[in-house]
């Protein structure tokens, strides 16, 4: 199915496209630079609408900690601008290239639509915490604005939260305003060996019970540690950021309080956390790539249950964890030893251990999205939340023209 692709330049230009889509019930597949199309279902029989011409930073006031840009602005441009001004997007959006290929770092709108957040999400918040306001066209083909351009605002519903992570299924954001923060003066890492995941998680809990303010914490099993250039056993990786005098002091305290720690300098630290952030460590696996969000202290049990199943199936299943153990990245085969679906099992295990969700972010199945027997990429919703999702979708996109079915049936 090759349909013409459209690349409107303005919000005004897309309104007639939407009106026609509503009239003809022709779904629109909305993308920015199309770097994350592997996430979710493909939108069937859709006209491709690319928003990569909605570019440009409209206003940036470093002292106000706000940046307003059009959603199609390349992340490379945003990152460069912020770096020049010693600022950052504190949620540390991943670079999609290692996991999804291509040479584009994605757009600001794509980062928001997928709530893409990196290691600092643990302590600083996710993309959803940094979108202050936006202007958009809803699936009704109407312009609307929500939020504001200041860092503190509770006027009206916080629709920014709803936009972030909605994968373009509710509205098309054009102008977006984000909160920026100063870039830390320096960042180093400490690595500590751990006997197993549980011990690693306990060590991280203990570190977060000190006032030494880690900004990120990951757990790398020995195979992943080796890939990341660290030798030996399972490694706990702790990042310390901030003013140099403070980072040095905190590092010293932590190295005293916890055994066998090693200090990693700024260059090595940056490389390590890029690998962790971008899922680079699993990128070459020929298997489905899963992201599991669970309570940090449940990580060990979740992994133990999954590993037992893998061993029984005589399969390997490389993984590592970020967010203090609460974000597990895993490369997993589709089917379990019992012939069941691995994704279903994964979700059961997470539900049994305190809840959370599992999202398939990349599949090795070339038939992706078309095989009804493949496990859903997004965690299926319980009845109460499904009803709310359907009604919210209908409130923004009643005919279902915006990425319908990308996340769930009809949504």
């Amino acid at each position, binding site marked *: 199915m090759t349909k013409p692709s459209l690349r409107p330049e303005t919000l005004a230009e897309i309104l007639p496209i939407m009106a026609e889509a509503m009239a003809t019930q022709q779904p629109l597949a909305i993308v920015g630079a199309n770097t994350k199309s592997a996430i979710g279902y493909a939108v069937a029989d859709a006209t491709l609408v690319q928003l990569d011409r909605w570019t440009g930073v409209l206003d940036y006031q470093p002292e106000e900690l706000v940046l307003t840009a059009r959603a199609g602005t390349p992340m490379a441009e945003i990152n460069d601008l912020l770096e020049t001004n010693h600022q950052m997007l504190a949620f540390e959006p991943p670079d999609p290239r290692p996991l999804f290929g291509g040479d584009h770092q994605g757009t600001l709108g794509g980062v928001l639509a997928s709530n893409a957040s990196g290691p600092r999400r643990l302590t600083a*918040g996710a993309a959803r915490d940094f979108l202050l306001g936006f202007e958009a066209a809803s699936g009704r083909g109407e312009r609307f604005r929500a939020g504001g351009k200041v860092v503190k605002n509770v006027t009206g519903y916080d629709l920014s939260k709803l936009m972030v*992570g909605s994968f373009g299924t509710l509205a098309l954001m054009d102008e977006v305003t984000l909160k920026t923060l100063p870039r830390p003066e320096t960042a180093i890492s400490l690595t500590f060996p751990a006997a197993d995941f549980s011990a690693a998680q306990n060590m991280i809990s203990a570190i977060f019970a000190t006032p030494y303010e880690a900004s990120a914490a990951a757990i790398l099993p020995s195979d992943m540690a080796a890939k990341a250039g660290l030798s030996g056993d399972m490694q706990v990786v702790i990042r310390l950021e901030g003013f140099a005098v403070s980072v040095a002091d905190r590092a010293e305290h932590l190295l005293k309080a916890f055994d066998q720690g090693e200090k990693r300098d700024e260059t090595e630290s940056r490389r390590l956390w890029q690998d962790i952030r971008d899922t680079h460590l699993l990128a070459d696996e020929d298997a489905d790539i899963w992201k599991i969000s669970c309570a*940090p202290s449940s990580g060990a049990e979740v992994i133990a249950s999954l590993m037992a199943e893998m061993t029984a199936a005589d399969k390997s299943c490389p993984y590592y964890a970020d967010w203090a153990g609460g974000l597990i990245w895993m490369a997993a085969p589709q089917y379990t030893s019992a012939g069941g679906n691995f994704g279903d099992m994964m979700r059961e295990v997470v539900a049994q251990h305190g809840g*959370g969700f599992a*999202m398939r972010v990349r599949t090795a199945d070339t038939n992706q999205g078309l095989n009804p027997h493949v496990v859903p990429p997004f965690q299926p919703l319980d009845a109460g939340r499904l009803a709310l999702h359907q009604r919210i979708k209908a409130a923004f996109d009643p*005919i279902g023209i915006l990425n319908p079915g990308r996340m769930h049936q009809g949504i």
Partner: protein
Amino acid sequence: MQMPEPDASVIARREAILTSLRKIVPAASVVDSEEGRRAYDADGLSAYRQLPLVVVLPETVQQVSDIMRYCHREGIKVVPRGSGTSLSGGALPLADAVLLAMGKFNRILDIDYANRCVVAQPGVTNLAITHAVEDEGFYYAPDPSSQIACSVGGNVAENSGGVHCLKYGLTTNNLLGVEMVTMEGEVVRLGGKHLDAGDYDLLGIMTGSEGLLGVITEVSLRILQKPATRRALLVGFDETATAAQAVGDIIAAGIIPAGMEMMDHLAINAAEDFVHAGYPRDAAALLIIELDGPEVEVDALIGRVDAIVNQAGASSIKISMTEEERMRFWAGRKAAFPAVGRISPDYLCMDGTIPRRALPDMMVRMATLSQKYGLRVANVFHAGDGNLHPLILFDANEPGELQRAEDFGADILRACVEMGGVLTGEHGVGVEKRDLMPIQFSEDDLKQQQRLKCAFDANHLLNPGKVFPQLHRCAELGRLHVHQGKMPFPDLPRF
């Protein structure tokens, strides 16, 4: 303030409604005497009062669900209430609505240090969360000034802030999960001890929805390790513009203080008269800048900030050397509202946000408005994030003064929006700023927000008359002009 016309048929059914509610909760938990209801007739916005139809005090989620299901079926409005400290009238009762008071939900359910999370019922106070975990060195960061009394459920409904939110965020940034009951009586869990939603961020939408989308029955809050050290600077300036410039300079230097508060001349002197905090009485503006973190970091940053404010032209600088001194610096700021209460029979507390660079213009505008209305205004600001709290001084016993004060306040909020800011930074819209919403939002913006409301509460039964100046019927909001073709999913309600 025009509230929705009470439904006479509901009021006529009052006795039957009481009987039904007594089948859901123990009879003693249904408050129907006028005297009993009087205690609930207002929240922190005490200029507005209304006796509720009846007050119900549920104590289990099942009871909340049953009450909601019953009210939904019978078409009875519901107004949820936590501790009733809202400054915008979010919990103002309605004559034809059940007031759902959540005060009996007062237990902390789980303290989980491994996941740095506290699970609590919504009626627990904000400060009680910190009290429950401080022995282990943890605390709950959002600290609205009412934290001794306000409930965490109310904090979620209002997305409460506080003096530390520039660095630590508002409620929405410190909330991991909720359990809520919809208007239809469905119990829905959002989030938990894990991070992020993985689907639509309903938790984010619930936060700050001012009790219009659901009733919160449980919250999971993120707790943080207490910083090792806290120190503060008390800095006087001869001009407000210079103080505003200094705030920008500090942030431009890459420093995000834990708190950065500004007070104007009138507020400084009212506070000084009241608590004798050692504030510079002749200063036009005062900054309290608090830094927290490891001791070496705080000491180093105190030095940097000292240099920055000096450079910016500070007229006086004091640096706290002891914890007692730091507390004294704060004493005047924390007592600012009651201090202003001592110099005026009444005051209105406003809550707009502006881009910080607009502060000098705003001060000029406020002085002009103060003359125009013949009313004094004292200013305290969360300077770091541009959140203003002008206190308009008036005397409610003088005919027409309340109206003049309200008009003055509305003009200030208009100026906030005009200067690129917003109507409310942390107090919420409620009834107080409801009719000002069209200043900030177009008709289409407000309609889209109301469509979201319709997805949760299609009959406008939950806390109606708040936030939105005009209630549109959901069917009308959902109307769509499509030239041809059929609707997919014909069974789905459309808004």
